[in-house]
């Protein structure tokens, strides 16, 4: 962007649009800005370089050279750890200001920690369990984030702890609730908040996505007894995400960078769409509620969402000023309770609710002149209609007409909005 502006400066000055002085100021401004932010590509390649070198060293040692003595094998297993620590120490002493050194050094050390543990396990034929290994690895890596101020390490740690939680809670037998995951996630949050206060670059956006997805993936760990109440927990989580996504620092910038809002809205819609089917209500009716972890977590998340919602209503002094998606969990809880005795009514009402969401989203898109939102609303409607094709006996003619109506509405709504924009620009 700055290059384009700088290229046009002389033309703009010649045309008398800006003065020589302004042109000079603009040049100085961009020069200083460039000095402050190092070349992004260099950092990206630096991180990838460290990542690949680290993985390469692990693979070479993993060959497990039989001809080497045990002591030599151990020496080479621990060498990357020493190298990584030396690189990080050098960075802190000599290159503390270099983002490239901090990021690349700590990424290398992160993998060296893993290499040292797994290679020693290999030398001694220790089978070990994956979740235990991931736990220790992540615990030893968390300090790196803060000491080296490395955003890439923080992202990798979020991935690692998510892997740990899924491994322990979903894949191990007998599975356990990965409580330490929440502590480790909490340990990453202060770093994320610091990123939020800073320049809010790409790493900040990635953090939002990684954090949102990590919590969505791992929340199911509390579902140790196949409790249907987990649906309530997830719905409340999605509404909570929407509320978080709509608060001041998160709501700024591009909508696709607002992970909490996008994940929350998409998640609640997809979950609601699932509840427009009959089978899921039959399942819930069969289920006997027990006061287990799933019950506790669904009540806690719902309570948290309630408090947040109430606070936002008080702050905005209006019920309508808040994103309608934030209310969905309350309606869903009512539907869920109704479904225990009247599953058909609850199913029917869920269909109406999804239709209402589709219409309001389309309407909001039209109102705010937002093509993305408009088409998202139409897409929800299309999916809802598609879902109903599976369990209703509509004739092909009716189905055909419905499709045509939706297709035409896609075309019509987009055309109308683009035309409106054109008229406004004239």
């Amino acid at each position: 962007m700055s290059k384009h502006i700088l290229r046009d400066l002389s033309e703009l000055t010649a045309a008398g649009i800006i003065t020589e002085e302004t042109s000079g100021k603009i040049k100085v401004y961009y020069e200083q800005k460039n000095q402050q932010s190092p070349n992004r590509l260099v950092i990206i390649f630096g991180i990838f370089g460290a990542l690949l070198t680290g993985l390469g060293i692990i693979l070479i040692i993993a060959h497990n050279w039989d001809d080497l003595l045990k002591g030599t094998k151990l020496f080479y297993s621990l060498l990357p750890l020493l190298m990584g620590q030396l690189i990080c120490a050098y960075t802190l002493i000599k290159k503390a200001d270099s983002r490239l050194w901090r990021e690349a050094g700590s990424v290398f050390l992160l993998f060296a920690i893993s290499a040292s543990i797994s290679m020693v396990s290999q030398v001694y034929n220790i089978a070990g369990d994956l979740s235990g290994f991931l736990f220790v690895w992540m615990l030893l890596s968390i300090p790196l984030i803060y000491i080296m101020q490395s955003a890439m390490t923080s992202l990798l740690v979020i991935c690692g702890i998510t892997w740990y939680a899924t491994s322990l809670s979903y894949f191990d037998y007998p599975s356990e609730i990965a409580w330490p995951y929440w502590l480790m996630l909490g340990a990453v949050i202060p770093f994320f908040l610091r990123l939020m206060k800073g320049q809010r670059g790409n790493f900040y956006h990635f953090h939002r996505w990684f954090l949102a997805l990590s919590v969505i993936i791992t929340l199911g760990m509390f579902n140790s007894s196949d409790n249907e109440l987990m649906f309530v927990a997830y719905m409340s989580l999605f509404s909570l995400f929407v509320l978080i996504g709509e608060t001041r620092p998160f709501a700024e910038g591009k909508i696709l960078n607002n992970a909490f809002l996008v994940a929350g809205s998409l998640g609640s819609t997809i979950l609601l769409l699932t509840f427009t089917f009959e089978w899921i209500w039959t399942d819930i009716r069969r289920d006997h509620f027990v006061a287990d972890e799933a019950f506790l977590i669904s009540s806690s998340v719902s309570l948290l969402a309630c408090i947040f919602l109430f606070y936002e209503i008080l702050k905005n002094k209006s019920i309508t000023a808040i994103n309608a998606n934030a209310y969905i969990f309350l309606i869903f809880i009512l539907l869920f309770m109704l479904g225990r005795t009247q599953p058909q009514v609850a199913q029917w009402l869920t269909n109406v609710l999804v239709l209402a969401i589709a219409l309001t989203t389309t309407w909001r898109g039209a109102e705010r002149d937002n093509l993305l939102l408009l088409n998202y609303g139409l897409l929800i409607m299309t999916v809802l209609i598609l879902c109903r094709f599976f369990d209703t006996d509509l004739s092909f003619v009716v189905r055909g007409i419905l499709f045509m109506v939706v297709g035409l509405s896609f075309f019509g709504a987009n055309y109308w909005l683009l035309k409106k924009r054109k008229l406004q620009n004239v």
Partner: protein
Amino acid sequence: MKPYLAVFFGLMCISQWYVPLAMIKDQEEVLSSGKVFRFKTRPVDPSDPFRGKYITLDFEAAAFPDNSSRVWERGQKIFVLLGEDSDGFARIVDLVEDNPDPEVDYVEAEVSFVDGENVSITYPFERFYLEESRASDAEKVYRDANRNDSTQTAHAVVRIKNGKPALEDVMINDRSIVDIVRELNAEPE
């Protein structure tokens, strides 16, 4: 570098060294002063897929007919009390839930599944790592030795101290599998 940062950095490095070094120390202790047990391996399932750079061991002493009324659950941590049979191979004396008397020979393990009275056990030493290129040769040698009609016997040498095991070697007819495979590789085909 600020002094407090240096302290934190130092602590971090120490903790990162502590984990692998503690593992080495524990294993070396068991290997140097642990009691040797020879676990006889049993015929392997030929459909067992090639596992990469280690061979998976399957032990004869990995099943225990428990006719007491105790209930064992899959994945449960247990202690296997060990003894020796007339050929000098390890055999299971009993399974217990609580930490046994240190005087008794035992090893920590896990219940893999329960079939009626028969309790199957997973030991924490079922993988034997070899050099990447040689693992498949080793697995072949190990399989041949474990075939039902084979005249060879295969066993794992495991040292155990205070319930902690360390897998030392895998022997086929009292020769280390590492040497056999090395010899195989040295001979021109």
